[in-house]
């Protein structure tokens, strides 16, 4: 058992080595989207007098955006860090054929990919946090404070695991020739319908949408972070997003490990 743990740790060490080597790229792909977003919506818009408001409560749009953009970074990074390399490994690089020969059960190789992806998601959250807090016009500062440390930590960690598990699942079931559709079909709808730019509770006037978006894991990530960072905003009940994030992470991890094993063994 301890030998298998050391193999698992060695695989993680390899991923950390690669991440360190490509850290510049990692930063660019993580930071660019939230940076541009807050620059336009929290700096340019207020400056030119074009308004978005956080709703009738007088809460600024930047406050709404903070948890949402962190959730997007987590989700995007999780999917990208796990699914894209995996698709390459299955199609032309074939590296996976060697990795599954490491002396651990095949599912452990998949689990390591989820853990490594979750670590990258967590790093992404860490790098985006200061940007969304700091980039804004005078007077448009977001009101952010970690009100519930425990809920925040749980929401953050399970958001990262959920995103990485989603990445592993997508990476094992998608046809490598259709990988270019990943962003159009998965990432973009998830992002725009992920309660990133609006709180879920505010969707009541469009009830059908409010119900449909519940299948979107990003909704729970945004709402979980929103509850713990900006509780002034209306948000989903705590039990609901905790159940979805924890239950969803476990269920999707089990499912992805199955599809992974099926894909590498014949």
């Amino acid at each position, binding site marked *: 058992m301890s*030998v*298998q743990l*050391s*193999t698992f740790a*060695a*695989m993680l*060490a*390899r991923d950390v*080595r*690669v991440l360190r*080597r*490509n850290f510049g790229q990692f930063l660019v792909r993580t930071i660019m989207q939230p940076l541009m977003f807050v620059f336009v919506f929290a700096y340019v818009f207020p400056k030119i007098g074009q308004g978005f408001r956080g709703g009738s409560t007088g809460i600024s749009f930047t406050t709404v955006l903070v948890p949402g953009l962190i959730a997007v970074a987590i989700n995007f990074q999780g999917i990208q860090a796990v699914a894209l390399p995996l698709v390459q490994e299955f199609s032309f*690089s*074939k*590296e*996976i*054929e*060697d990795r*599954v*020969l*490491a*002396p*651990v*059960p*095949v599912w452990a190789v998949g689990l390591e990919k989820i853990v490594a992806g979750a670590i990258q998601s967590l790093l992404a959250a860490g790098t985006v946090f200061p940007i969304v807090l700091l980039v804004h016009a005078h007077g448009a500062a977001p009101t952010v404070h970690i009100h519930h440390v425990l809920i925040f930590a749980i929401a953050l960690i399970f958001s990262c695991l959920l995103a990485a598990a989603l990445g592993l699942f997508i990476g094992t079931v998608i046809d490598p020739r259709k990988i270019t559709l990943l962003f159009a079909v998965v990432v973009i709808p998830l992002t725009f319908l992920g309660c990133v730019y609006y709180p879920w509770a505010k969707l009541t006037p469009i009830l059908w949408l409010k119900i449909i978006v519940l299948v979107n894991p990003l909704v729970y990530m945004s709402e979980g972070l929103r509850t713990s960072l900006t509780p002034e905003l209306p948000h989903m009940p705590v039990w609901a997003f905790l159940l979805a994030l924890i239950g969803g992470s476990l269920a999707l991890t089990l499912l992805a490990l199955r599809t992974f094993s099926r894909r*590498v*063994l*014949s």
Partner: protein
Amino acid sequence: MNSSGNGIAPGAPIRTEQLRKVYAGRKELVAVDSLDLEVAGGEFFGLLGPNGAGKSTTIGMLTTTVVPSGGRAFVAGIDVRKRASAVKRRIGVVSQANTLDRSLTVWENLYYHGRFFGVSRRAARQRADVLLQQFSLAERHAAMVFELSGGLAQRLMIARALVHRPDVLFLDEPTSGIDPQTRINLWRILEELHAEGQTILLTTHYMEEADRLCERVAILDEGKVLALGSPTELKRTLGADTVIALTVDGDPENLRSRATAIRGVRSVELDGPIVRVFASSPEGVLAQLVADAASLGLPVRDAASHPPSLETVFLSLTGREYRE
């Protein structure tokens, strides 16, 4: 201890019992059918056969990435189905495709491989250095693997498979698609490893490669073992010193009985327009054959004579031309 309880059976590095793999699908495909093999410690063993014979599927089952449909297989005495992780610890695999880690340098490929297999940091560093020297890759230690040529990449794959000192080294079609010089270099490396006592199982569809390298070969076709033995033994089963192939225009059926009657001829086979004659004393056989063909009104397009090879063994077993 009994073998079914803990998945350990004593004895040979590789042993299979009625090993079978069937791929389900619209049309069921029996890739490997009731395979019984035993490879001894330190042996250089070859699985030889055309594409689709079941070689890669067999190696896949022995290296745990293909799940057997029936029968049993033991590597280093360990049941591949029951204790796959333990088997993986004891084997080194050089697969057909380049599976090197492209995000790492040459040296890191060896170092992290060692770490995956529980080798300590220090020992993994030393082992990586030693293997790079041994495989003449030391100069390229800092290169990223995508900068390597095909031959160097393959050498690195073999070095990587040896980092954790495996009981058995598996090589799946290592020379397919590489240039002749690289192939000869690879043969030299494998011969050295064999001389050091490494147990090696190699699959190949090149008959001459198996003939040169392997102590014993199993000739596979359509998932079944057609013949098993040393290359010399297998060639001896033909009972002929020379094989003469005559290609004629027209139906060679009449030539068959004439040829059988020639002195020194052991057997005759027809393969399309080719008459293949196995002769124990070849003097005068070719001349007589050509004369017989002429008297039957069959123009001779081509005539060739050569000592028997594994290819001829395959031909005499299957009755058809060997397709690589």
